[in-house]
């Protein structure tokens, strides 16, 4: 059985059935997952860059992140 399934609950009969995803559906899910991971990796890298740039400025000012938070309230 594939790692992706659809669970179907029929409220009239109370029966639950499991339908394995088709090959096409599995391919789509794996593609979605790969795209999402790539997107998250990009966002994470961007965030790391922002954090690094912020730290450079804080170092210049001689302040910590807590100092900034206290100033901004």
């Amino acid at each position, binding site marked *: 059985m594939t*790692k992706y399934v*659809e*669970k*179907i609950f029929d*409220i009239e009969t109370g029966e639950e059935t499991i339908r394995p995803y088709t090959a096409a559906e599995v391919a789509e899910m794996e593609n979605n997952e790969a795209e*999402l991971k790539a*997107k*998250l990796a990009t966002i*994470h890298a961007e965030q790391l860059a922002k954090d690094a740039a912020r730290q450079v400025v804080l170092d210049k000012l001689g302040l910590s992140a807590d100092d900034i938070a206290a100033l901004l309230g």
Partner: protein
Amino acid sequence: MAKQTFTTGQVLSAAQMTSLQQTAMGGGSTTAKTTSYVLVAADAGTVVQMNSASATTITVNTALFAAGDTVQIQNVGAGVCTITAGTATVSTSAVLTLKQYDGGTLYFNSTSAAIFFSSDAADSPLTTKGDLFTYSTANDRLAVGANATVLTADSTTATGLKWATASSGATGWTLLNAGGTALTGAATITISSISAKQIMVLVLNASSTVASAAMYIRPNSLTTAIYDAFGNAGNGSSTYSGSTIFDKRCLYQSSNGIPIGDMPNAVTGLVGGYVFIDKTDQTGYKNFTASGSGADNSGSSTGEVIYNLGGILEMSAAVTSITVATTSGNFDAGTVYVFGAN
């Protein structure tokens, strides 16, 4: 007076004239019978009266009567008397079965064909208080229905009618999938065999095996581009703060379904969502509202993504199922509740 062939110069007696008059008035001499009888030529112009407590027949054969001959038939007995076509044909628009005191005129179109003109009015089929006079293949009765039922057309019944419970007015909300349905272990969860005029869907405590996997609600599992929505689908920064600015979208079109959240992974946090859909028992346009929370783009549990939508679905069928789906990974926690109202 029985049918006669008069000769020139024949003189009729007073009694014969009286009998002739009676025959002309539709009465005349009577041949009383107590058992089944076969008409003979001499019955032309007379009254054949059956008087039996048992069922009997009066049989009509050919080559005995001439065109224009008549026989008056009466049943005065308790037994049913049936006019039976022997070798002649007998036509009627009424019935040939005569109850007690039924009768009529048998008129011969030819030596072999007669028509029975009944003097009896059509019998009423009604027998009981509340009966309705109706028709199936003949006059028929529809017995009165149970208290508070209403008369309803139904082509599957013999009379085309039935008594049925009147449709009720609006009802309250009912949880259709008792106890909710767990999302764990599947990428798609479908609640089927729904019949309701309005549907509410509530997803609680959901998370995914894939960080930031999106969660959607799909009526009838549709993934075609039928969803148009206005509202906020806001993405915040990875670090939530009171001054986070949300990206406000004014028009949201999706072929994945109605979005209600992006999920964190590994049950580090739980999110939920809500969808309401109106007119779900009809085709065409439907109104929906949706709201939900989601994890940030890094997959943490801070719930920075918020969906707040209202929109329109255009469907070619009534809604009979609701699907909760993720586009990546499987759900590893969560429950969906589907409520219906009529």
